[in-house]
């Protein structure tokens, strides 16, 4: 069996989605953790932001992050297209709510919302930070100020919050689903994984939601 055969089989494609999913779950911990520095203070946050944008290890990991997101999307799209083709004639009447949760069946839609959000999110913060890297370094990029500026707009804050709702439900299914795909289903561990998944999802989304709200309502200066 070649690597191509291994990863292109139905089961193999999902390994890619699950492995990149777990990688993205880990990334969100770092992202939320680093951003939480805004609650410590403007200078502390800007220092960490400066470190994250200049450290070479972080910048190499950043490439991995983009590869991860890309693979996650591409594989999920292929799976989604094949799955749509697997049932050419649909049911006249379907009580899917009796056998599964709506969000487990809506990962494609939720993922698309997150992708649309990411495009906007990158244009808000990522592009500016990268451009600043190639300009003179004597005036350091004030990411804190940039966040305050972006989140002074109420509409943007609302879009961020809606996107976090999509992320919440995406993670509610995705976290435990990744472990099942990688073959971990166990009487003792699976309930634990599910509980950790729910806890992780709630904490991560609340933490992210607190940031635009904190700037908009001026909880922090």
């Amino acid at each position: 069996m070649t690597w191509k055969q291994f990863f292109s089989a139905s089961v193999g494609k999902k390994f890619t989605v699950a492995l990149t999913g777990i990688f993205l779950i880990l990334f969100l911990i770092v992202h939320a953790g680093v951003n939480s520095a805004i609650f410590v203070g403007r200078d502390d946050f800007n220092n960490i932001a400066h470190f994250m944008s200049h450290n070479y290890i972080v910048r190499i990991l950043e490439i991995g992050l983009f590869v991860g997101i890309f693979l996650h999307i591409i594989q999920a799209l292929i799976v989604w297209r094949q799955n749509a083709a697997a049932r050419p004639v649909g049911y006249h009447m379907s009580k899917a709510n009796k056998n599964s949760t709506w969000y487990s069946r809506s990962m494609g839609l939720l993922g698309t919302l997150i992708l649309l959000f990411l495009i906007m999110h990158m244009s808000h913060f990522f592009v500016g930070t990268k451009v600043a890297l190639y300009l003179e370094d004597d005036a350091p990029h004030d990411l804190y100020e940039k966040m305050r500026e972006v989140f002074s707009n109420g509409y943007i804050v609302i879009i961020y919050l809606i996107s976090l709702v999509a992320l919440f439900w995406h993670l509610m299914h995705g976290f435990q689903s990744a472990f099942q795909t990688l073959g971990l289903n166990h009487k003792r561990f699976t309930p634990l994984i599910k509980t950790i998944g729910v806890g992780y999802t709630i904490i991560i989304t609340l933490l992210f939601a607190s940031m635009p709200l904190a700037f908009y309502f001026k909880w922090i200066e």
Partner: protein
Amino acid sequence: MEHYNMNLTLKIWRQANSGAKGSFETYQVKDISSEMSFLEMFDVLNEQLIAENKEPIAFDHDCREGICGMCSMYINGQPHGPWKQNTTCQLHMRAFKDGDTIVVEPWRSRAFPVIKDLVVDRTAFDRIIQAGGYISVDTGNAQDANALPVPKKDADNAFLAAACIGCGACVAACKNGSAMLFVGAKVSQLALLPQGKPERETRVLNMVAQMDKEGFGNCTNTYACEAECPKGISVANIARLNLEYIHAGLNSE
């Protein structure tokens, strides 16, 4: 439980053959006993159609006691109807009330083409079994059954997986038309036992390859299959299939 009779409206998928364009037909049945099974109600309807010189409705059935896996039918939006861990033949009319409208459709999957009315072609499952769902047994005298020690836990899990009757409700229920619960059960029941070890690796690789070739969808862990399975096959079997696949795929040359 109190016995009662009911009049029902049935909306049933009719399709002359696999190439024909099907459509729903509406029928009325009267004085159906709450003690009847769902298939007996269909027998009454077919008698009625024959008396009217109409083509009776084709549907799959065999043992009518919930163990053969022949009956199918997507009833009111659920495979095998509203009861949990139950086949269509064991669904009784007390699940319905007088005046109800019941919608009956065939399994919908690219890999299960409709042959006629509510009968679908499930030989895709047979071909998956042929690809690896067997064990090699040497000729000669049968050895003593107790010569191969099997841990109780493995014996139990293999037995639970072997309870799969191959009806296809998992594929019918899955929004992706995935056959992972079926294949997971068939791989597990052999992989867990010593007799299944010699073909353990080729089995999972060949069965997954055949499953993909048949045009089933990819599993996205909605667990609809487990909820609708008449035998309560656990999705732990899907995880075991994934693990077997990783192990065999990395081990193969």
